[in-house]
Structure formats: C-alpha cells, structure tokens
C-alpha cells in the first residue's frame, strides 16, 4: 500500500522529491511587522521537516510589502531578510524534503484593515464580503510589469536563501487568479480581453522567474481548476492554462479551486462530486483531465485523509504528488507514519459545534490555533474543543504584537535561533 507513496519523484528540473506526500501551503501568519520570518517559522518547519513529507511548500510569501493578504505574512521584495530566510530554509530542509517558497500577490483580496485601495486587473469589487475588502483600482500596464519583476526578484532572493524552488500562487482568487478570470479581468489590452491575454500575466511571471533563477530552480504553479463563479475562470480555460504552463517548462502543477469570494457566497456552493467523496481528493477528476493534456507532474491537494486514497490517486496516474494541509496542522508527523505503515489514515478530527453554519469557522480557527501552538514549540492539542476554537475567531488578531514578542531573526539568525523556537 505504501509503495507508491514512498517512491521518489524526479521533477523536470532534475530535483528529486524523496516521496509522494507533500505538505501544501498553509498561511502561518507569524511573520514580523517588517515581513521577516520568525523563530515560529523555524519551529513549525522543524516539525514538518521531521514529519516525513517529501515536499514542503511554505505559506504564502508576499512579493510586495504594500500588498499583504494577511497580517503576519512574510514579505520578500528584496534581500533585507536574507539571514532569516536562510535560517527558515535550513530548518525546512533538515529532513531531506524538497522545499518551495510560495510566492503571492493578493491583488484585490486584501482586507480593508490592511489596505483601503488594493490593486487588481480591473476595478471589480469583491462580492459578498464588502465588509472585509475595499474596492480595488485597476493596475496600469507599467504597474503590471513591475509586479512581474517583483515575482522574479522574490524568486531570486528565495533561491539565494536556500529554497529549492518557488510556487506561484495562481489560485484562490489572488492577483494571478484575478488576471486569469474573466469575472475579475475586464481589461481589453495586452493583459485581458481573451483567455490568452488573461493568462499572459501568469506566463510572463513564470518566464521572469526562470530568467532570474538558475537552471535547477524548481518552478511550481498552483492553479484553480475553476473559481466556481458565474462568468469566471472555468475548467476549459484552466486546462488551456495548464498546457501553456507545460510549454513554459514548469516542474509541478498543483490543482486547487475556489476563491475567497465564492467561498463566502450565501447560495452558491461548489458542486461536490460523488466521485470526489468516494476518492477523497476534491480535484482528482480535473487532474485526470489535465493529465490527458499535459505531462507536467501534478499535485492534488484537498480531501486526502488515508494512505489508500492517496495510493489510489497516485496509482491511477492522475496525480504524482498527494498534498496534505490541514491534517499536518494536527499531526505534523503524519507523512512519516503513513510511509512506515504505522498509520493508515489521518486521525479524524470532528469539529462540530452543533450549528452547522458555524463549523467552517471552527475548522479554520481550530487549525490556525494548532499552527500557533507548533510555532511556540508545543505539540498540537487535539482535545481543543470546537467551542474554544470558535472563540479564537472572535479574538482580534494582534496586528503584529504576537510576532513582535517572538524573536524575529532579523538581527541574527542561524543555529542559535533554531535552538529557541517560539520563545
């Protein structure tokens, strides 16, 4: 059963993923005010590095400090945090995993508490979550070019810091995703008007990153199968985008779906296919469609809970890597136990409050609290009740206070920093 999971995977760039379980990106939100990694990152990634996953993808790193998706995001727009980034990369690599830094620009998807005037392909406001997001303004062509260069700069810096590669976050309604979607990209210029021009932003970023980094640098893209909005980015366009990315020579394509906006809608929900339920992975059917069109290695994240489910997905050839996220916030060593056969599934985490409407909030809050514990060097608390997690949602996130109390690694980094995680 573990055969496929424990097999290594050689990516087109030549980099080797030692096994087929990947830790997908989860936003850590523990960066310092200036956007530096902290000792919390070292503690987290030390735990995950020892946890056995073959690939670790960091939480989203912002490429522009003026555009942060959340408080506590790490920002890499120059080399000012090089020592701290290097310490982070070292901590993540200690278990032999391949480590990718996920690079992101939120575009319009910035809470108004962080920006009153975010930027986007077009001035299309978020629907359904007006209270959280301000109306964006449309980027100029010159600004678009600048952002492309920012992605390249960030990639160059993370490579120098020791990360094996980068993942471009082109999913979940962030800026690249906004360019891809006809719902949010109403432009009629070089950057919009038809599918090819809408995906040009992504393609140009991929090319700029390739130019800015060495031949062995791993380039991954996280792409939505669809954003589940009327008039939005659909599966046909996503398949065409996957083909375009394959032609650009990317190493790994991660399949995901949805946006902040569609996730928050009252009436609209993502159609959950019976096949997805049966096979665990939400996006496996789409991965099969992608596999029929391109040969780039695919990673599918979302829904996996058992070794059998992952094994089936890998055996079918639809995916080459099985991505786990939330299960690793509760059990950081789950990959090692799955690979050794000591476990055959993630421990079920039942987080029902008795009021279904509140359960998605509890899910997010519960796992975020576990990440916070791990960042402080503590084990996850699986006994944390849903009600206590729900209260966590009501506790205003200290803007940067918590991160400020945590040593930021900015002044000095290195082995001594890893010795005092989360203090």
């Amino acid at each position, binding site marked *: 059963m573990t055969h496929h999971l424990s097999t290594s995977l050689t990516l087109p760039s030549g980099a080797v993923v030692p096994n087929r379980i990947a830790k997908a990106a*989860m936003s850590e939100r523990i960066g310092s005010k200036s956007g530096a990694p902290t000792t919390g990152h070292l503690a987290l990634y030390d735990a995950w590095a020892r946890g056995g996953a073959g690939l670790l993808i960091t939480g989203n790193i912002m490429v522009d400090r003026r555009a942060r998706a959340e408080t506590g995001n790490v920002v890499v727009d120059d080399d000012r945090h090089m020592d701290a980034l290097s310490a982070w990369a070292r901590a993540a690599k200690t278990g032999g995993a391949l480590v990718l830094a996920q690079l992101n620009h939120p575009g319009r998807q910035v809470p108004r508490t962080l920006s009153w005037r975010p930027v986007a392909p077009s001035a299309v406001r978020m629907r359904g979550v007006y209270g959280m997001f301000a109306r964006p303004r449309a980027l100029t062509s010159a600004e678009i070019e600048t952002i492309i260069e920012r992605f390249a700069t960030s990639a160059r810096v993370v490579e120098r810091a020791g990360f094996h590669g980068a993942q471009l976050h082109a999913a979940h309604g962030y800026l690249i995703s906004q360019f891809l979607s006809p719902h949010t990209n109403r432009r009629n210029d070089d950057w919009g008007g038809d599918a090819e021009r809408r995906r040009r932003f992504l393609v140009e970023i991929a090319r700029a990153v390739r130019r800015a980094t060495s031949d062995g640098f791993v380039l991954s893209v996280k792409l939505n199968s669809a954003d589940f909005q009327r008039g939005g980015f659909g599966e046909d366009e996503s398949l065409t985008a996957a083909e375009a990315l394959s032609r650009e020579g990317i190493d790994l394509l991660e399949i995901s779906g949805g946006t902040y906006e569609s996730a928050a809608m009252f009436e609209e929900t993502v159609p959950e296919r019976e096949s997805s339920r049966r096979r665990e992975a939400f996006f496996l059917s789409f991965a099969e469609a992608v596999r029929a069109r391109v040969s780039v290695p695919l990673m599918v994240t979302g829904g996996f809970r058992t070794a059998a489910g992952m094994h089936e997905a890998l055996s079918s050839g639809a995916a080459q890597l099985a991505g786990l996220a939330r299960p690793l916030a509760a059990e950081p060593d789950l990959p090692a136990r799955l690979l050794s056969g000591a476990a055959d599934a993630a421990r079920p985490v039942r987080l029902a409050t008795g009021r279904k409407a509140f359960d998605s909030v509890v899910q997010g809050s519960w796992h975020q609290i576990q990440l916070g514990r791990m960042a402080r060097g503590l084990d996850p608390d699986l006994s944390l009740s849903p009600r*206590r997690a729900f*209260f966590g949602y009501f506790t205003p996130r200290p803007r940067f206070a918590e991160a400020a109390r945590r040593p930021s690694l900015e002044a000095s980094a290195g082995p001594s920093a890893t010795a005092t995680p989360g203090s």
Partner: protein
Amino acid sequence: MLRNELTDGDPGDPPARVAAALAGGDLGIADLTARQLGEFVGKTSSVLYRRYGSLDGFLHEVAQAGFLALAGRLESVADAGGLADVAAAFVDFGLTKPALYYVMFEHRFDWDALRSAGTLSGPMPGLELWGRIISRLEATGSTAPATDARLLYAGLHGLVSLASGGRANLGELATSDYDIAIASARALAERLIPDATSRL
C-alpha cells in the same frame, strides 16, 4: 469545503462574521439594521430577509454565534481555573465586547415571531458549562444548585450592565467600573462556592 488550506482563511458564515465584527468593534449597536448588516455581508436586505426570515432571525443567529464564542471562552477558563475565574471571564467578555453582548443579552427579540417562523433552532450553546457549575454547586453543599446558578447568571449580567453603564461604583472605591465588576464577579462566585478558586 472549497479549499483544504488555511492559506486564505475563511471569511465565515455571515452571522458569525457579523458577531466577530461586533466583538472586534468593527460594527456597533447603531449598525444593527438590515441595510447596514446587509451591506456589511455584501447582500441586500431582501436577501437577508429571504435567508433568515427577518432582521430578528438574522440577529438571533448572531447571538447564537456570540453564545458559542462565550461558551468557548468560559470553557477554556474552566479547564484551567475555578468558578471565580469563570465569573470574571463572563464579565470581561461582556465589557470588552459590548455590542455583541447587547445582541446576546439585551436586544428585545420577538420570540413569538421567531418561533412561528421556525427560525429558532437548537438550544443556547454553552449550556453544558452551566451544568458543570450546577454540579459543582451541588457537590459543595448547595441545597438549591439550580437556583444558585441562576443567581450567579443574573448577578454577572447585572455587573456587566451596571459597569457598561458606568454605574458599578457605589462611591466607595477609587477604581474603574471594569475593575469593580471583575472583583465583584469573583466575590459573587466565592459567596456561592467556598473553594471558588479551585478547578471546576
């Protein structure tokens, strides 16, 4: 579930989001209109009415979210401390989240209308903790534990109400209403249970 990650957070169910905004001060009591709340969650007031039956139906869900959060707060305190800590945490919740507390404890719901519209669903979250308190009262010799628990409930609400109105100080103390209410909540718990500081 759309996304299996924490990458993007979850904006949350509209009543939970409104409750959190009331708790965090992003919305106030003056914003409790269908138009304002609809704008906050990005829907017209008619959508709110269609989904929740009425403004009261929506606010009742907001209150339920508040009770669930309060239960979570009190549970975490109860797991580490005694009844005095729980009492103080209740008052702290009320005084630091006044707009949410207002919806939970002071808004005048049209209960008959909610009941007939079928929008009352399930018991108030957090009743289990009151069960624990009643058990402790019984174990420590209370002859009317349910009545004592209700007195505690009423007393704590009274302290929140007095302190939030600036009327907790009877003139004998040179300290803030918040501090008076917290100290009084602890004292009330200690009157009811001799070992109010030991773990519940």
